[in-house]
């Protein structure tokens, strides 16, 4: 085997190759810079705010003096995202089951899938606007801004994420499992609930966790559905605070202590969301499907 058989790569082509590959690697490095900077600044600025009382007291709303903690924001986020999850998950998984088990290939299924896709693309602020004009202005439930209205907006946001991820996993469940179940005489509903869903469960949980992570970080739809308050509320018909809304409000304040609170709250929020995301990936990796 002699090298003569191949046209030698000219020095110019070799240089171009090296340069282009270097550029691609460099741009990849550039892509990592923002994440590193954001995490560094979050920890640097936020760690100072964090203490036991930071998590156990409500914001005071005082411009001067003690700004308090972020208890109401954490609880509000957990409560609103919790309610939104309780609504969006059954509906979203239900629609996914219908798409895969009942509507497969039908015209209606195409339409439903299309509208779910449309929902995925709708900006979150437009969902907030929709809830604002249908529920807040109309004063449904005897309140203007309320926690459950914030949850509604978040649920609208989560629904397409849950449905699409659940659909993908349900499609991965082998038909042989369903056929085996039918052959044993199991009715359809039993097949769905005892065979298909348990098999797809890890994947569905992953999708749900990612949807929760997304909803927990949303600010825009909460601003004009649940508003921003200081006190902790457990009544869904009350205004509820949330971490993203609190951060947004505090950024605009020309007061260092309030800004520090915002960094602390941001650090808390990102830590919560990163944990959810990593948990989702862990479950995904251990799933037998996909």
């Amino acid at each position, binding site marked *: 085997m002699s090298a003569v058989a191949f046209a030698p790569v000219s020095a110019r*082509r070799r240089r171009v190759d090296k340069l282009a590959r270097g550029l691609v690697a460099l*741009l990849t490095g550039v892509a990592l810079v923002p994440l590193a900077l954001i995490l560094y600044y979050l920890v640097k600025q936020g760690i100072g705010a964090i203490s036991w009382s930071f998590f156990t007291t409500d914001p005071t709303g005082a411009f001067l003096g003690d700004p308090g903690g972020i208890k109401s924001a954490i609880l509000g986020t957990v409560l609103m995202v919790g309610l939104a999850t309780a609504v969006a998950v059954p509906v979203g998984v239900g629609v996914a089951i219908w798409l895969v088990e009942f509507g497969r290939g039908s015209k209606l299924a195409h339409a439903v899938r299309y509208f779910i896709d449309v929902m995925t693309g709708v*900006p979150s*602020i*437009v969902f907030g606007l929709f809830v604002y004009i249908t529920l807040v202005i109309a004063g449904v439930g005897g309140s203007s801004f309320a926690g459950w209205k914030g949850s509604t907006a978040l649920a609208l946001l989560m629904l397409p994420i849950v449905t699409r991820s659940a659909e993908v996993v349900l499609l991965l469940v082998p038909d042989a499992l369903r056929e085996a179940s039918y052959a044993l005489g199991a009715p359809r509903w039993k097949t769905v609930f005892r065979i298909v869903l348990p098999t797809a469960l890890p994947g569905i949980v992953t999708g749900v966790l990612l949807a929760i992570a997304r909803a927990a970080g949303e600010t825009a739809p909460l601003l004009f559905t649940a508003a921003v308050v200081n006190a902790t509320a457990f009544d869904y018909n009350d205004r509820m605070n949330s971490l993203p809304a609190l951060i*947004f409000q505090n950024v605009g304040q020309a007061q260092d202590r309030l800004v520090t609170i915002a960094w602390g709250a941001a650090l808390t929020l990102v830590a919560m969301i990163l944990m959810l995301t990593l948990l989702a990936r862990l479950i995904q990796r251990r799933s037998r499907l996909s």
Partner: protein
Amino acid sequence: MEAGTIASAGERRSALHRSPAARLPDRALKWGLTALSVGVIALIGFFFVKLILESRPVFGQVGIVHFLFSADWVPSRALYGALPLLAGTLISSAIALVLGIPVAVATALYVTELAPRRVRGPLTVVIDLLAAVPSVVYGLWGFFFLIPKLQPAERWFADTFSFVPFVGGTVTGPNYFVAGLILAIMILPIASAISREVIATVPREHKEAALALGATRWETIRMAVLPYARGGIAGGAMLGLGRAIGETIAVTLVIGNANAIGHSFFQQGYTLAAVIANEFGEAASDPLHRASLIAAGLVLFVLTLAVNAVARVFVVRAERGRVPSPGGGPLAGAGGRNAGLPTGGVPISGAAA
């Protein structure tokens, strides 16, 4: 059902027949879920109709053309021309695409084609983590870090290249460029993920053919990988654009919220989403103002709808052209190689010429 295994017709009936009561759960499940799915369509329909109905007052008052193309947005004098908002949305999103997409494609290329195998997984996870950072945190970081740190560089750039259109002139802290940069970072994960998926579908035979013809790694990427993945990459970019157009909080914090179109990329602006977030509070008491904000939401909705529809076309087309890779080692069977080349749609000879 074969009757062979069952003794008589009567017995078969008793073995397989299910009473109407026993079939009830099945029917309930089927129709319940169908109703749920139809409900989703109805909800989106209601959503759209509601937005149109609620924004009608402003379209009736100022007219749809005036609303879209007049440049005066002064709610206190009942002037509602959304052009500065529309322009701000488009300018910041365009900057995001120009800055973000090359980087996203580069990361996708690096992860799928060039990186050592053991860093691929971790690198993917790290890039995907960018998607986990909430919008408001990007805004917080942009407001307190990016704006002050970037200003000297922006000022130098604006002075040095002032002969380029839309570059020279005064530089404000919050501006289109900072908003576009933040958006570029925010759309990076989705554009990168989709590019990665599409690049991964490029048949191994195409790359091997290019390499066998003596192409360098970069020439292989340029001649075999990129042409094949072009459609999918465009789709990913469009999906990113859809995200950028609708992004609210981060942009609100860094674009300056000025009701006029800035004269350069380094001046303040406003976007459709930001105006909704900022003004809904004061608009509660003024029906026309409220209607105009809802109209801004409607424009935003239609804009993202159109962009996403185009993105879908691209992505679907890219997926249809996909050839299942034989999945063998570097010495995959000749059958797979033959199956891959003619249907792939990328004429290697033409690309190499």
